[in-house]
């Protein structure tokens, strides 16, 4: 019989509840502000449901009616420079923070609402209706509310999707030493998703001032919390990560406030993250103006029980007991709030031929559609752009991977905002390939080895980027890991600028190395360019020489958009032209390079395929324009170079290494045939890998990737199909 010993978790887990003495001691102004804030939020959301019922809200209207205690109780513990983000159900959290921001001295229950309160309400309602005067110019709607000035970082329609970004903002606060904290709100449904759990771990490991605020409203749409987990006391999650946790009754706003004060104190002290679980209840269904019981997943009795615990009534009752408010004054407060919301919606809605409709002039203009998918690159306008053939200094042969480390060292020395993160980037003499050689010694607090949690750490970097004070350079050890991090890479980082109205920046650099040829098999051997090219917020560069790497990395670091910098293991160990000394020049994003001129075809290629293409055309004696694309994203395709070339050659071959499924050239071929159909003497031809992902077996891997033989076959095909076959 083995012996067992009971182990205790390293962090605390407590349930906090109020006693009558706490209510008696609460400052009147605190209670008055809580009450007024919750009444405003409640009437605002009732107006949203009213409009939704009339078919005037396009898309979902996720109300939090009944849950105001969690939002208001926690917002009251924050200061203006603290920040929040939330999920698809976040009107209440957004408003609580925004009201708190515009009325830092509190809200009197008998006062007229200030113009600022009115403005917050109107801009929020406009956003939910999708109108131009909304916080995100109508782009975000109900589920993407962002008002950075007030500390609202942006709410999220992906369950748990905003949590890593909140940790990023917290990282920036910690690094800047401001003492500010971030509350990231999410529900019971989000507790089981990777983004949340990975971020809890990372935030605890790095002691970030972020509060994971769980609104446990017991239902993920209609699935109960007991169905979703064996431990429905969700604050228990903190024990696994060493995060102190509080469980409170969310229908008691004072209890939430007191827990939030304790949590905030803990975070401001530098002790790391916290968890608060607030038990709350949404009086309505997931979406729209019907109660959950109408859909049969809960009973009217249960709803009546929770309605009897209404957080607004609770505060009103406690205040009445202290003679801080009377029945008439409470009615007057509700009436004034309703009048405000009626008045606001009256400015947005009109009667037209007997039906109510949005005032047409308030819609965004349809030509606003694409604004802000990416920035305007004005940040590069004054950059010193230098190409290799006009470089004034000395060009020397250097190992590619050494130049990667050299330019990053140079930039980090010049720019203290830069922080490098990724798996093992701080060890092994510069990560697994030496690309970060020397950086962790020179900048120990700015080279962060991460846990193996790509989704969390790249999302955290996105949060840092959006904050703007620091500049994250993230490494994915292998490109295939983008699938692991897909939500943060494609839903969050790529879309944030556009989704939140087009003005917010996302200056982030993501480095990764294509590893075809190393025998790492199906899950480590992709070229990610094709997939990233579908995600329009990303810019992509793929330098084929050390010289170009320096210039393109410098441009990527200046750029205010997320930039994927592609590297290749074959290039790492190769030597190529590199600048001697000068590591400060830039190369424009969106500029290809014509490497060879000829009349028989235009070959478009990039990264490690450039050299074998040049060798193949020399070997076969083909007269071809060879264009190194260098920038691969849709906005970065250099039609000014490609178009005239096709005009001269009338034949196009796109060469890439990776397998066809995720390949890059398909969209480019499509774009070329649409632009230049009449110039083409044959369909756009392509060289790419096979259908299968590369296998570990050396022979099978070589068969799966495009190499010199496939390039030669492609060149021969293009020559044959224009009626001039090459000699065998």
């Amino acid at each position, binding site marked *: 019989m083995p012996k067992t010993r009971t182990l205790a978790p390293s962090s605390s887990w407590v349930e906090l509840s109020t006693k009558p003495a706490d209510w008696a001691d609460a400052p009147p102004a605190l209670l008055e502000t809580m009450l007024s804030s919750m009444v405003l939020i409640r009437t605002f959301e009732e107006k949203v449901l009213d409009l939704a019922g009339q078919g005037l809200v396009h898309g979902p209207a996720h109300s939090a009616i009944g849950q105001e205690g969690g939002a208001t109780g926690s917002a009251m513990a924050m200061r203006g420079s603290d920040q929040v983000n939330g999920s698809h159900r976040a009107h209440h959290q957004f408003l609580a923070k925004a009201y708190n921001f515009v009325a830092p001295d509190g809200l009197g229950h008998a006062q007229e609402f200030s113009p600022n309160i009115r403005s917050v309400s109107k801009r929020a309602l406009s956003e939910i209706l999708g109108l131009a005067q909304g916080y995100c110019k109508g782009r975000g709607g109900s589920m993407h509310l962002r008002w950075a000035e007030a500390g609202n970082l942006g709410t999220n329609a992906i369950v748990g999707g905003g949590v890593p970004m909140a940790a990023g903002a917290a990282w920036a606060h910690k690094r800047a030493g401001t003492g500010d904290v971030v509350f990231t709100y999410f529900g019971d449904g989000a507790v089981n998703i990777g983004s949340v759990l990975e971020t809890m771990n990372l935030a605890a490991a790095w002691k970030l001032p972020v509060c994971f605020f769980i609104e446990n409203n017991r239902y993920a749409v209609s699935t109960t919390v007991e169905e979703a987990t064996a431990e429905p006391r969700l604050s228990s999650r903190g024990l696994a990560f060493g995060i102190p946790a509080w469980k409170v009754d969310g229908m008691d706003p004072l209890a939430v406030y007191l827990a939030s004060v304790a949590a905030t104190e803990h975070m401001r002290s530098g002790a790391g993250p916290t968890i608060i679980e607030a038990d709350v209840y949404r009086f309505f269904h997931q979406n729209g103006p019907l109660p959950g019981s109408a859909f049969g997943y809960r009973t009217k009795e249960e709803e009546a029980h929770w309605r009897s615990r209404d957080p607004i009534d609770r505060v009103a009752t406690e205040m009445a007991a202290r003679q801080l408010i009377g029945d008439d004054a409470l009615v007057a407060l509700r009436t004034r709030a309703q009048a405000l919301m009626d008045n606001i919606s009256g400015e947005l809605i009109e009667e037209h031929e007997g039906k109510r409709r949005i005032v047409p002039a308030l819609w965004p203009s349809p030509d606003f559609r694409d604004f802000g998918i990416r920035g305007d690159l004005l940040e590069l306008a004054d950059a010193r752009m230098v190409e*290799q*053939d*006009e*470089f004034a200094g000395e*060009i020397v042969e250097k190992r590619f991977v050494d130049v990667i480390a050299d330019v990053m060292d140079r930039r980090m020395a010049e720019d203290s905002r830069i922080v490098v993160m990724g798996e093992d980037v701080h060890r092994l003499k510069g990560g697994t390939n030496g690309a970060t050689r020397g950086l962790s010694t020179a900048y120990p607090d700015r080279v962060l080895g991460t846990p193996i949690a790509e989704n969390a750490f790249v999302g955290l970097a996105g949060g840092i980027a959006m904050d703007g004070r620091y500049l994250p350079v993230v490494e994915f050890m292998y490109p295939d890991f983008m699938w692991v991090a897909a939500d943060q890479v494609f839903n969050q980082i790529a879309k944030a600028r556009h989704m939140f109205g087009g003005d917010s920046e996302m200056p982030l650099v993501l480095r990764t190395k294509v590893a075809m040829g190393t025998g790492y098999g199906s899950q480590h051997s992709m070229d990610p360019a094709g997939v990233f090219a579908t995600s329009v917020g990303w810019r992509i560069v793929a330098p084929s020489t050390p010289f170009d790497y320096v210039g393109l990395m410098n441009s990527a670091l200046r750029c205010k958009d997320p930039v994927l910098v592609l590297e290749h293991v074959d290039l790492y160990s190769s030597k190529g032209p590199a600048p001697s000394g000068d590591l400060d020049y830039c190369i424009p994003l969106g500029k290809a390079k014509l490497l060879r001129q000829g009349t028989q075809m235009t070959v478009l290629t990039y990264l490690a395929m450039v050299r074998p293409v040049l060798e193949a055309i020399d070997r076969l004696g083909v007269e071809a324009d060879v264009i190194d694309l260098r920038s691969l994203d849709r906005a970065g395709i250099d039609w000014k170079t490609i*178009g*005239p070339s096709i*005009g*001269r050659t*009338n034949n196009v071959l796109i060469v890439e290494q990776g397998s066809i499924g995720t390949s890059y050239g398909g969209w480019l071929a499509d774009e070329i045939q649409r632009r230049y*159909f*009449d*110039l*083409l*003497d*044959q369909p756009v031809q392509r060289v790419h890998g096979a259908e299968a992902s590369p296998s570990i077996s050396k022979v099978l891997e070589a068969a799966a990737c495009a190499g010199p033989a496939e390039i030669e076959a492609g060149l021969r095909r293009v020559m044959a*199909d*224009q*009626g*001039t076959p090459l000699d065998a």
Partner: protein
Amino acid sequence: MPALSAGMEEGTIARWLKAEGDTVEQGEIIAEVETDKAVMEFEAAQAGVLGKIVAREGATVGVNEPIAFLLAVGEQQESLIGISARAPPGPSPAVTSPAPDISKPVANGYHADRVKASPLARRIAARQGMAIAGLQGSGPNGRVVRIDVERAKTSSQTEAVATPVARAHTFTMEPAVHADEGPEGLPYRKVTHSQMRKTIARRLSDAKRTIPHFYLEAHCEIDALLDFRGALNEQANGRYKLSLNDFVIKAVALATQRVPEVNRSWTDEAMHVFDDVDIAIAVATDGGLITPVVRQADRKSLSALSTEISSLAARARAGALQPHEYQGGGITVSNLGMYGVSGFSAIINPPQSCILAVGAAERRPIVRGDACVPATVMTCTLSVDHRAIDGAVAATYLAEFKLLVEQPLQLLA
């Protein structure tokens, strides 16, 4: 017909990308218009349905004349009854090929009667007035590709009489060629003017007629410059390869910087004085002369100039210059030295006031002291607009240029 570039007076419809009845989005490209110097895309100013095309492909239309009618939402086609189309000049293409019978599918999905040809081959054949149907295709599945059309053209040119063939499709990116017979019975071919040809003709006639030209000639000794160029190119390691012309442009730019009085333009109202030294370079293309501009040439290094000039020239020959790349410029340089021309006088490129005509670098005997010695000499002739610039100023300018090419180290100063 919109004014697609400054000073455009008329344009030719190169191609319609939309047919009558097609829905058109705002901003969508509906036609290609050949202007003086380029084929430009024409975007719809507003959405609607293309009701009636009144200017057919090949038709030349004045600016602000209608080319088509766009029906707004709700407007009916009937409102356009009575409006007739304007066809291109010359014999209208007769469509004689029978309607293809598409009811006979053959192996691998191709219709037996459909002629398989690449888009480029079709375009070249249409331009040449050549039928594709009879050609032997050397591409996949017997597809007719460019080389087949070119081979057919070469062989047909050896025949005494080319039979004009009916064209189902006209494409007038380049002039259409018609066989014809002159009034005196002399055979000739009538080649319709391209917009570019017409523009060159009009502008240079105006220039020669209205500008009082005077001409200054200088014989520049350039042995030192050639040595200097050779040394620079030797040290370039392939990073650049400077041509004699690159040095000439550099010298013109620096001379202009030193004698800015030549960098101006005469108008009846006032003198237009330019601050930037922008040098236009005459480039011969298949369609005619075009003058791309190197901006702020005085501030650029020789290698940067060289790269930019090659790029501009290559794109000029490809017809790919953007309007902003060939508009403006204070002074033009025209170099015919590579054709062995010893010297020549050029016509000023309005509204500029000077053009420098550069001849070949030739070994010539020159008198130094009392001895006759061989030297490499390049004759340069400056044509000057006397309305804007007087003789002494122009002479100072040319002397400055001569100094710079004869003492080339100054080009680096």
